[in-house]
């Protein structure tokens, strides 16, 4: 009797080198419960040294593997037709040192950028004008306006990135988290669309499929 199962890929995120990917690692299945556990345990691909940073696994690769063990099963793929796995590489560089370096770089860069910005838009004369607008006095250095301004600058950035009030105000993801997610997704989409000749496939070229010739 023919059996139907449904398969839906999910994003696993990252894998480590030399890990074997099983069906259960990359997809959810739905169907007759007696065969599902054995399908879940089918190996799909073993990450090896030749893989660089990402591995794309196609629905066809998974279907072929399932069919070679269970030829009588009809698999319906729901949703995405491939999943992208990111391979975690062990880094040799000492990260704390790197972190301090990059931190310092960003710190100085941000300080310099804001000074350039202030000069560029004549912020000083705007502040002087604003000060005389409010108080009627002309001051060359309206620090009473400028020091709150400086702290407000940092506060505004933190507010925008939803860092300080993350837990208190809302549970929605911050723009930065959304941005990180979109960036990762764009990479995955790019890899899924462009790299059609993948190593994760058991056959090597686009035109050849193991069942087409015989």
């Amino acid at each position, binding site marked *: 009797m023919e059996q139907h199962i449904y398969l839906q890929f999910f994003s696993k995120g990252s894998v480590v080198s030399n890990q074997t990917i099983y069906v259960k690692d990359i997809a959810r299945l739905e169907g007759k419960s007696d065969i599902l556990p054995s399908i879940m345990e089918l190996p799909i691909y073993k990450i090896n040294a030749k893989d660089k940073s990402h591995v794309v696994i196609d629905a066809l690769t998974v279907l072929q593997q399932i069919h070679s063990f269970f030829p009588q099963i009809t698999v319906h793929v729901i949703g995405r037709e491939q999943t992208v796995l990111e391979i975690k590489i062990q880094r040799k560089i000492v*990260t704390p040192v790197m*972190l301090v370096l*990059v*931190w310092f770089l*960003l*710190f*100085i*860069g*941000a*300080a*310099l*950028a*804001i*000074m350039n*910005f*202030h000069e560029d838009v004549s912020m*000083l004369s705007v*502040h002087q004008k*604003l*000060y*005389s*607008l*409010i*108080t*009627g*006095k002309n001051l060359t*250095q*309206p*620090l*009473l*306006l*400028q*020091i*709150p*301004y*400086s*702290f*407000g*600058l*940092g*506060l*505004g*950035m*933190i*507010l*925008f*990135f*939803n*860092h300080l*009030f993350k837990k208190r*105000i*809302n549970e*929605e993801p911050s*723009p*930065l988290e959304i*941005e*990180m997610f*979109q*960036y*990762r997704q764009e990479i995955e989409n790019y890899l899924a669309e462009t790299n059609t000749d993948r190593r994760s496939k058991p056959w090597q070229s686009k035109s050849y499929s193991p069942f087409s010739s015989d």
Partner: protein
Amino acid sequence: MAIEVLFAIFVGLSGGLAVGSGLVAFITVLGIIPRLVQLTKTYKAVQAYELAVVIGALVGTISGLHGLRLSLPDLFTVPVGLAAGIFVGMLAAALTEVLNVFPILAKRIGMEENLMSLVMAIVFGKIIGSLFHWVFYVTF
């Protein structure tokens, strides 16, 4: 004479139209108002915020062009300065976000876990840079 006046009015109006729509487009693209609405959960007040931007731009124009002067106590500049700073800070944050700075940087150097401390580096850099600018740099 009347033609000159009419032409001046026309030029002023069209210039103002271009600058005004540009300002609104800039603020809209950077998404600062939606962000503030989301943070404060005041979804119904969006129109009031629009009005605030428009009135603010008008007051800024009038006071800047006509040398308006009030005689309020000095301490009134503190909230004004703070608000100006928060707005510019959000502008700067929104700009770095539009330019995809953090995701690319964090990915390239493999510091996705330390993203927040990198953001804080920029935040402190902005505060210290700004303070240095106002307190020391301008007096040189």
